[in-house]
């Protein structure tokens, strides 16, 4: 495969053809914040946190392929400001109360807020009504914590091959649903494999019985499953 030469933050690097900017940056030690991206799953370019400046235009690093001669900036003042605004918008959208969250201390959203220097949220808290569904024997879903990244939807569809999860509605009324918007425990298609829990970046999907700060998502395991499946052919 042909190599592409490009510049990231002023440094020349070479990348494989067809690789995303995100992969190329990580290979060369540059980290770019992400939320809807998860290694092993397809990319949707939805959270917009990985936007980078490509020759003056903003592009999502996860879905933009490298090209010869690209001049990429990953951490300009403008990008940092936009990323912080995006994370603030998420915190304002639903009830992300870290103090009483099962994933506190192990949460990608919480960590993003820290790394982007978010000391407060400048927007109105929308405070929507969100349910907590603990009808499943082992797992629960707290919609207050959901950021609609669709990692669970993709893990279920692409890795488990079931597609129990999808999204209903649109805009801020969108909600993750199981089967026909039934309680998770009644969703016949669910195999209770728990891959959605692995994929979830926040405290939205959790093991029942876990209390504050107890829920750790081993999201890296999704990539391991996918990679070993690929190697085995």
């Amino acid at each position: 495969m042909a190599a592409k030469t490009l510049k990231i933050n002023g440094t020349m690097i070479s990348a494989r053809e067809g690789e995303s900017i995100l992969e190329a940056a990580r290979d060369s030690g540059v980290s770019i914040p992400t939320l809807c991206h998860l290694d092993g799953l397809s990319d949707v370019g939805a959270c917009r946190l990985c936007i980078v400046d490509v020759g003056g235009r903003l592009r999502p690093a996860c879905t933009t392929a490298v090209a010869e001669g690209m001049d990429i900036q990953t951490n300009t003042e403008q990008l940092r400001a936009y990323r912080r605004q995006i994370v603030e918008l998420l915190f304002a959208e639903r009830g992300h109360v870290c103090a009483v969250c099962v994933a506190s201390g192990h949460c990608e959203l919480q960590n993003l807020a820290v790394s982007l220097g978010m000391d407060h949220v400048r927007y109105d808290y929308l405070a929507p009504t969100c349910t907590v569904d603990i009808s499943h024997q082992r797992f629960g879903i707290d919609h207050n914590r959901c950021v609609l990244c669709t990692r669970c939807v993709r893990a279920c569809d692409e890795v488990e091959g079931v597609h129990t999860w999808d999204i209903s509605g649109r805009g801020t009324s969108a909600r993750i649903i199981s089967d026909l918007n039934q309680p998770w425990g009644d969703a016949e298609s669910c195999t209770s494999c728990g891959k959605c829990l692995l994929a979830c970046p926040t405290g939205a999907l959790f093991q029942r019985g876990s209390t504050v700060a107890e829920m750790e998502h081993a999201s890296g395991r999704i990539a391991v499953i996918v990679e070993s499946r690929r190697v085995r052919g």
Partner: protein
Amino acid sequence: MSDTPKIKLATVWLGGCSGCHMSLLDLDEWLIDLAARVDLVYSPIADIKVFPEGVDLALVEGAIASDEHMEIIHTVRRNSTLLVSLGDCAVTGNVTALRNPLGEAGLTLQQIYVDHGDPRGIIPAEPGIVPVLLDKVVPVHAVVAVDYFLPGCPPPAPRIRALLEALLAGRIPTAEGAKMLRFG
């Protein structure tokens, strides 16, 4: 140290659990150092009824949840040079704001005291004695300008100390890294 004039410090307890004040007290012996450099002119741990004028630094714990909070916070802002939102309730609304999805104050009280409480329950209403709830709990900065934010539920004592040390030394407190910023 003694030749520098003491700064006037106030701490305020609004819609919160007082955990942030507990965390402040967790500073243990450093409180003695602090006492040498500040005059505590208003605080739930000091018996002072009226928020004084000319306060240099006010640490505010808790969200704005009632008409009383609303009145106090405006006084605090008017009478203080620097105002710090201390802890997640002040900064985000946090647990205090968990009631917001239930709707306006009347609906909320109905659900808490009657629907999910005692069906014969009575909604407390003693104007002038029991503060009247606001329809929506909001963070402090939604009502008045805030100079610094110190997240945490509660903010760990070293985090409070780092902020106070910076302010006492006339520096801008750093607002970065998990040590200073993590919510929860």
